[in-house]
């Protein structure tokens, strides 16, 4: 295990660009992949908390924050946003061969890129708002053999040990591991900062390197739509829900609901 000096700690934050979660999303009829062109793309909101947490750790301990994103060319906007919040450098994994990658392939590309960076701490969001799987962090941890401290509502690093509160069904678990380690954070953990004007200007000069499949040492057959380990066979818009009965409260609104619940056999 590598000795980690917190002043030189290297934090890699994984951020994904996603369609704006307020926008209507559709699947491309041709290959059932998400139509990413027709909607505004933004940084996955849940990854803003990951960036914020990385910056807070850096502010308290020193070290370097590198943001990593895999996505089409416009994903650089998301990397720039993280840089304007304060991250030091960006790595963009981009290759046409990655289109249609499932979580398994995404985790492969991210794992290779993280390995190349030599990260001491990797921070993820808890879920991407488009795929909504919450599996990529665990997959990357498994691939890299890193201790997994996911769904954290608090993170602290001291003397080469990371300690988190892992949100559970019943409360939380306190989890500890030696660095290097992998963390994902939940949205309760902090309040992400807005990029300042100075931050936005500074971000323009920060380095963003790109990596393609060859650079990562990944064979084209291992990723992309053709390599997906799970496939969408059919997609259809959900039949619109039959319009419900809406009544104005005339003083007996509660009784009206009770009548409905009785008719539906809930009471």
């Amino acid at each position, binding site marked *: 295990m590598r000795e980690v000096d917190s002043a030189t700690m290297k934090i890699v934050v994984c951020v994904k660009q996603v369609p704006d*979660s307020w926008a209507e999303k559709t*699947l491309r009829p041709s290959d059932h992949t998400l139509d990413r062109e027709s909607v505004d793309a933004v940084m996955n909101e*849940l990854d803003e908390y990951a960036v914020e947490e990385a910056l807070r750790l850096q502010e308290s301990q020193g070290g370097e924050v590198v943001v990593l994103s895999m996505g089409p060319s416009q994903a650089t906007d998301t990397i720039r946003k993280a840089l304007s919040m304060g991250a030091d450098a960006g790595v963009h994994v981009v290759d046409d061969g990655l289109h249609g990658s*499932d*979580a*398994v392939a995404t985790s492969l590309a991210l794992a290779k890129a993280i390995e190349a960076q030599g990260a001491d701490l990797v921070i993820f969001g*808890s879920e991407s708002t488009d795929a*909504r*799987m*919450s*599996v*990529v962090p*665990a997959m990357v*941890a*498994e*691939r890299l*053999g890193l*201790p*997994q401290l*996911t769904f954290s509502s608090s993170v602290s690093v001291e003397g080469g040990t990371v300690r988190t*509160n*892992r949100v*559970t*069904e*019943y*409360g939380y*678990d*306190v*989890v500890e*591991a*030696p660095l290097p*380690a992998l963390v994902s954070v939940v949205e309760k953990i902090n309040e992400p900062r807005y990029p300042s004007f100075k931050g936005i200007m500074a971000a323009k000069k920060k380095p963003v390197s790109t990596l393609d499949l060859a650079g990562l040492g990944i064979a084209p057959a291992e990723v992309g739509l053709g390599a*997906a*380990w*799970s*496939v*969408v*066979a*059919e*997609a*259809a*818009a*959900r039949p619109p*829900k039959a319009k*419900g*009965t*809406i*009544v*104005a*409260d005339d003083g007996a*609104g*509660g*009784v009206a*609901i*009770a009548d*409905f*619940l*009785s008719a539906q056999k*809930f*009471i």
Partner: protein
Amino acid sequence: MAEVLVLVEHVDGTVKKVTYELLTLAARIGEPAAVFVGSGADAALPGLAEHGAATVYVADAPELTAHPVAPKAEVLATLVAERAPAAVLLASTAEGKEVGARLAIRSGSGIITDAVDVAADGTATQAVFGGSVIVQSKVATGTPIITVRTNSVAPQAAPAAGTRVDVAVELSAAAKAAKVVDRVEQAKGGRPDLAEAAVVVSGGRGVGGAEGFGVIEALADSLGAAVGASRAATDAGWYPHQFQVGQTGKTVAPQLYIANGISGAIQHRAGMQTSKTVVVVNKDPEAPIFELADFGVVGDLFTVVPQLTEEIGKRKG
């Protein structure tokens, strides 16, 4: 007939209902076999057998629960390698999905999360983008790993042998690297588990404060329901965070969801959209939550909800 492994969700041997739902789905594909990790298996055996488990694999060693996620994935990976099951089903909880994720990588298998139905050939139905699109997916590589949402199917009694088979698993060093050093339980009261409840009554910003949740709880108790809250309510500290429903809270799919003083932001809907029946109380007729309502009342929740609670009390005698 090939086995279908089901990871048991339990607390010290008290099995969660979702496990019985998974066993019911597993029987469509092959022979259900439960996988129990942790202590308390003896208490769990009868219920698992009753719901169709021909075999119950038990892995009970202290180190299996001393580390998060990875040990369960390694127990399952060992069984997948030895037993070559037709599929592995897990609950679509935060932990279930992560166990499935690690198992997918370890066993070289595809994974489908948040299924709401599974067919005999392993095709899974998912409701994506907050329920607006329904997709049918299939795992194309390895052993299908499918995580299924609670309340997707009614659990059925299907008595089977439930033969206990103890398994010993040697954990990898990586699985032991993260340690659980403390477990903190936050009170949940006497109400049913939010994720599993058949009826959920929730409150949002319209409830106005912590005291306001009194009327929500009273309605919930009259129906034997769980209480939920919107993020606006949990962020304001009116109700504890673990009761948040939505994208970054719990996903619920009860028979009945009653939303009170909740506007129906997309992030809230993402967590309750597949509820079977939705009732709404909101004073703003334009609130988007009404789009989901089977029955809605435009009115003040502080008059409508107590009246409803009282009326339920009368009718239940």
